[in-house]
């Protein structure tokens, strides 16, 4: 009997040793990949950039670096201020400072930091305004409410002289635009008026992420390849490879590479007919809140729309009517308006604007590539220069 027990004990120890050894080998293997040029070709866990935020629900964490793998491999490092930006002091420098608020198109984790539209705009503006700064407040997946909350919190702390807020029209027509369980959303009050809502603050997920255990979890994500593998798998789902792709999610954000009949219909319904009513109310609240920030802080705000396809055959001139309505609402609230899609087509031509999106085999579909970020950067430099006090 003792002999049998000893044998069982030895087997258990051997199994445990095998498990630990495998973990160590995997950890070393991926660290070697991460530390060498092999990171540009071999599989590895993706960097985890985001953490909790009281104002917006989530944001970039400070000084996190690693490989971004989705869509186009890129080495990403967040700044000392926890932004997708270069390191810079929080205090306003001698030159003018602009902030650009937007979603992943502005965040641009697919290209190097110096190639993002904000960095390009900063480089151009610096020639005209020595010491000019353009701070990238782009945040992946940011909806109108998150953008307003981000400008109110991180934006105002930076004391900008001008703010550009890029709104993706596609996000306004998604059904979950009023959800506030993971991040800030617009929710109606008893009178039906939409206000910023922070339901995420009461969720167990947010409470965990802001607890000591959550801090330990993020420390592990930053220092352990094994922890990132487990987290990546948790995020995509255990059997993700067997599930069909989330096409519905993609459609909501996608920049249509070519125009087609009916492409503007959801936007015509939203802005000319006010349908769906909730989406229209969210946009009205978004403009109202931005106008309040503009009034209270006395700096120009430029609202820039994108994803309202320009340059397509449009016999009924629906697009002009649509843009006129949006422009009137934004300018009526005391802010400036920029039609990014029209500026993009004016810069490169209707037949070439798809080339500004996507990478490699997926050219035409996806986020702005290096050329796309340059074009956006030139547009931003121009609109910011016009808005800066002379």
């Amino acid at each position, binding site marked *: 009997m003792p002999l049998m027990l000893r044998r069982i004990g030895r087997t258990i120890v051997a*199994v445990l040793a095998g498990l630990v050894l*495998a973990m160590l080998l995997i950890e070393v293997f991926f660290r070697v990949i991460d530390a060498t040029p092999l990171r540009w*070709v071999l*599989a590895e866990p993706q960097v985890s950039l985001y953490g909790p935020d009281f104002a917006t629900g989530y944001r970039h964490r400070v000084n996190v670096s690693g490989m971004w793998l*989705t869509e186009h491999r890129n080495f990403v490092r967040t700044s000392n201020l926890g932004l997708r930006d270069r390191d810079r002091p929080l205090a306003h420098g001698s030159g003018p400072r602009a902030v650009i608020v937007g979603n992943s198109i502005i965040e641009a984790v697919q290209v190097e930091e110096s190639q993002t539209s904000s960095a390009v705009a900063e480089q151009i503006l610096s020639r005209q305004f020595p010491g000019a700064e353009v701070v990238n407040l782009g945040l*992946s997946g940011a909806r109108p409410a998150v953008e307003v909350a981000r400008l109110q919190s991180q934006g105002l702390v930076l004391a900008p002289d001008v703010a550009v807020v890029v709104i993706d029209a596609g996000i306004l027509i998604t059904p979950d635009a009023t959800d506030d369980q993971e991040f800030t959303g617009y929710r109606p009050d008893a009178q039906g008026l939409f206000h910023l809502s922070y339901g995420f603050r009461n969720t167990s997920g947010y409470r965990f992420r802001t607890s000591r255990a959550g801090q330990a979890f993020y420390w592990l994500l930053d220092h352990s390849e094994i922890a990132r593998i487990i987290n990546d798998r948790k995020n*995509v789902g255990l059997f993700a490879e067997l599930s069909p*792709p989330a096409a519905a999610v993609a459609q909501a954000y996608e920049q249509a590479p070519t125009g087609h009949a009916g492409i503007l219909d959801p936007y015509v319904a939203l802005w000319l007919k006010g349908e769906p009513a909730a989406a229209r109310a969210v946009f009205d609240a978004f403009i109202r809140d931005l106008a309040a920030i503009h009034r209270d802080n006395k700096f120009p705000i430029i609202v820039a729309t994108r994803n309202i396809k320009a340059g397509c055959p449009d016999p009924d001139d629906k697009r002009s009517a649509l843009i006129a309505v949006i422009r009137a609402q934004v300018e009526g609230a005391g802010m400036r308006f920029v039609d990014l899609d029209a500026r993009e087509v004016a810069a490169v031509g209707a037949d070439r604007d798809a080339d500004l999106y*996507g990478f490699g085999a997926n050219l035409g579909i996806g986020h702005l590539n290096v050329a796309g970020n340059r074009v956006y950067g030139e547009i931003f430099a121009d609109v910011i220069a016009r808005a800066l006090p002379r």
Partner: protein
Amino acid sequence: MFGAGDPGGAGTAPLPNDGAGGALIALGCAGLLALHWLEGYLHTRRTVLLMRRLDGPLLRTLIASLAFWLLLLPKVQENPFIYFRF
């Protein structure tokens, strides 16, 4: 890849400037070839005999766990519009 070949098909991404010079790239390529050599070595009679000698719960758990961890790593996400996750 990295801007080489047909510009229309390869996109506009330049070679990443991460300090990887010629020697490091050559080392990376040698590393990839080493994986093929290792795979070939596993099929030799000598390795099979060695594995038979070391066969036991430790080796079996080690190999099964390595396979498990590699399977756990999600395949590269090609959909550009899968947004942030914590």
